């Protein structure tokens, strides 16, 4: 690297043309030696919780302890979510791409010695297939990554989200430069329409059509117009928007600025839930860096177009992810949905035309502008184009962030990429779309995952949470869980949602205690339909979906609860008993010591017994027993 380049990279220079951006990008790439070993440590939330920060520190310490005397000093880089969260903390060694899992600080020295100073793999920390035992060295080899098509999250886990130069080196803001220098706002909207992109926040409204309507509304009402990022992700099990904001904040900003240019907006808002402090921090850093490079703010790249945005933190209400509640929240009022049959593009934030899109939708826009709408529309299936990022969670081997083209069969995501539920058993159901979605049973495992197919089977795309359930998950319990969640999160404005959700949950509470009758199941369906038709906003009207789909596909299990007073999955506490198999119990006393109700008795080295009348059904004995002697019936 020449001294002048180094100086240029140290102090951000205000870019004044697309050519400047290209020069800067080349300078950055030139300054990076592709052969320089880099230890890439995942700092996604999962890996951080598993000690990722300590691992990174151990590597830094390890490098200085080793007193490495190499021509190329290895570097440590921290990134956003690398994807395979259940096997974190994850560490990748570049340039050869060795992929290490469940890395602990104590492993740093060995990895430095073998994989950084030499090119030897440390196989004990590498991905091992649970079925075949095969060991995979790199991301490209691991089925979890190999079978994905990573586009939106391609840079996440590769770039340092706190350093704009890392993002620019991988092409960030090049779509913005292209748009500002070669396209008119009308052409941008046309390109969006061609792409067929549908909103990734849940409802799947065509983004191009939304922008077109906004242009029409602007013609009538004039400006100002606002662009808003919905980063109030709150579905249980969903974390892809968080991962995008944390791991590649520039993609969201770039998309937002392109959208603002297309609509002639000068101000934008990023509504991010306060529970995502890292996303807020990274977005703030990204915005400050983008401003200092002249990629945001006054006269962007000397195009004459100015745009700036600010972050609004959500105050913990799930309902603020609903568009009109989000607007009232930004306006400083209580986050209640607006009772109006007016579209946000006409009357949104501050009563002005507003385009609100989800984080992932915005992050798709640089891709579309880069490759062109027509090319983008070839990905996925007709009517559901592009890729979708899913959060694969629940009873599945590989929990993590997955991106596949729309229309990918469910089984490919859950079984091939996710590795199935383990033990070679089939999954019982997959819950898509969070509390507004539905449960798709194993018999529909080949359902293509796209907007229309999921709606057809009674579920929905939703934001992209995919909760895998196995035979130990009870559908009544799942329904109760989601209803309880929404009951707490309902704003309470309309009667069907405020009262209906509690009443539905009470009916399910009864079922879980073996009370109720088949007629109650009919009532539950009828009340669900009243909520679907009657609630003020999508929170209430989609809330019955988990219950309705489980009744549709698992009615036998409901009947087992109310008629036979049994919970086939062994979850509903009132309907199960714990017992000890005297053949298997060797009297180790471990269960008796741990039982909080002290209801397990027996002498040492003799089979024990549980007093069912005192048992709390907490399940601690089941977890404690090493001899598989405790069973649920």
């Amino acid at each position, binding site marked *: 690297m020449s001294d002048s380049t180094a100086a240029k990279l140290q102090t951000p220079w205000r870019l004044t043309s697309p050519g400047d951006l290209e020069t800067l990008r080349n300078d950055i790439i030139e300054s990076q030696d592709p052969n320089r070993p880099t230890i890439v440590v995942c700092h996604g939330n999962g890996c951080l919780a598993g000690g990722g920060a300590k691992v990174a520190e151990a590597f830094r310490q390890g490098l200085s302890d080793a007193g490495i005397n190499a021509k190329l000093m290895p570097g440590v880089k921290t990134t956003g979510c690398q994807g395979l969260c259940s096997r974190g903390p994850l560490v990748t060694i570049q340039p050869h791409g060795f992929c290490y899992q469940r890395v602990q600080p104590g492993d740093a020295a060995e990895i430095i010695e073998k994989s950084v100073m030499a090119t030897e793999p440390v196989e004990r920390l590498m991905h091992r297939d649970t079925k075949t035992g095969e060991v995979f060295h790199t991301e490209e080899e691991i089925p979890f990554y190999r079978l994905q098509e990573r586009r939106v999250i391609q840079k996440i886990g590769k770039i340092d989200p706190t350093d704009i130069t890392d993002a620019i080196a991988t092409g960030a803001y090049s779509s913005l430069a292209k748009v500002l220098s070669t396209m008119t706002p009308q052409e941008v909207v046309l390109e969006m329409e061609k792409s067929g992109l549908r909103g990734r926040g849940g409802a799947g409204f065509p983004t191009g059509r939304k922008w077109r309507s906004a242009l029409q509304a602007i013609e009538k009402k004039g400006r100002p117009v606002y662009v808003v990022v919905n980063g109030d992700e709150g579905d249980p099990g969903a974390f892809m928007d968080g991962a995008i904001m944390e791991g590649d904040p520039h993609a969201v900003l770039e998309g937002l600025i392109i959208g603002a240019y297309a609509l002639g907006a000068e101000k934008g808002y990023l509504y991010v839930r306060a529970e995502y402090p890292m996303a807020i921090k990274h977005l703030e850093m990204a915005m400050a860096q983008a401003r200092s490079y002249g990629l945001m703010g006054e006269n962007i790249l000397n195009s004459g177009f100015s745009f700036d945005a600010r972050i609004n933190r959500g105050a913990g209400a799930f309902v603020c992810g609903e568009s009109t509640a989000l607007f009232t929240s930004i306006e400083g009022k209580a986050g209640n949905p607006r*009772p109006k049959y007016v579209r946000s593009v006409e009357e949104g934030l501050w009563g002005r035309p507003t385009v609100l899109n989800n984080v992932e939708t915005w992050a798709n826009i640089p891709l579309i502008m880069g490759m062109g709408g027509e090319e983008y529309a070839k990905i996925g299936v007709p009517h559901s184009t592009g890729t979708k990022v899913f959060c694969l969670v629940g009873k599945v081997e590989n929990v993590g962030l997955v991106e596949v083209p729309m229309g990918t069969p469910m089984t490919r995501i859950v079984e091939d990429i996710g590795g199935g539920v383990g033990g070679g058993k089939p999954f019982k159901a997959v819950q898509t779309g969070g509390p507004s979605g539905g449960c798709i049973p194993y018999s529909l495992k080949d359902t293509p995952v796209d907007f229309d197919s999921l709606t057809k089977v009674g579920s929905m795309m939703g934001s992209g949470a995919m909760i895998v359930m196995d035979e130990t998950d009870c559908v009544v319990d799942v329904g109760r869980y989601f209803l309880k969640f929404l009951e707490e999160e309902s*704003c*309470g404005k309309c009667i069907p949602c405020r009262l209906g959700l509690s009443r539905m949950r009470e009916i399910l509470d009864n079922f879980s205690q073996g009370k109720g009758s088949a007629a109650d199941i009919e009532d539950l369906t009828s009340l669900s339909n009243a909520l679907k038709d009657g609630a003020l906003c999508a929170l209430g009207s989609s809330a019955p979906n988990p219950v309705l789909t489980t009744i549709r596909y698992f009615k036998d299990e409901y009947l087992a609860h109310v008629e036979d007073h049994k919970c086939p999955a062994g979850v509903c506490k009132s309907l199960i008993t714990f017992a000890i198999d005297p053949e298997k119990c060797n009297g180790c006393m471990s269960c008796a010591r741990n039982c909080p109700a002290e209801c397990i008795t027996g002498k040492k080295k003799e089979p024990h017994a549980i007093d069912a009348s005192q048992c709390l059904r907490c399940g601690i004995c089941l977890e404690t027993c090493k001899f598989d002697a405790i069973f649920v019936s």
Partner: protein
Amino acid sequence: MEKITFQINDREVEARPGWTVLETAREYGIEIPTLCFHEAVLPSGACRLCMVEIKDGDWSKLVASCIYPAAKGINVYTETERVSNVRRWIFEMLLAQVPASPEIADLAARYGVTRTRFPVKDPEEMCMLCGLCQRVCEEVVGLSAISTVDRGVHKRVGAPFLRPSDVCVACGCCVNICPTGAMRALFDSIRGETKTTLTQLTA
């Protein structure tokens, strides 16, 4: 001004621009039940009793008539199966929620709902959170001495921070507009020490 022509229950009706479906229906004496609607304040679409079905061939959807703008050529139905289902459940839930309100019981009975399958939580409860008190105080009196506090099942009517409010001038509009009489009992929890002397309230 040009009138808007559309159908309610297969009957042709005319609305002035800016009217809602509910306003038009009432003009023609077509009955639609409401609880949170009052001419004095802006509609809020909260009670959902005024749901009507809009049909267009095979397609149909339910909307709240108090906020749905009259539009040319729409076909509105006020007594369909889906509409009745929503109403019936709302009434049943209200009977259990606000058992102390004879007004609600009367209205429910008019629509054939006289019993509820749900257990009663508080036999004294009269407030069903229609929000009229809060809206009249904000929009008509211009004070906002009353608000709804908390959210979801915990939502209730009260003064900000649940302390009697000095902002309240004890004008009694909230007591007057309250459709169930619940405000009479709540009034003292709203009214702080007022600086104005007022004539006695007639509720």
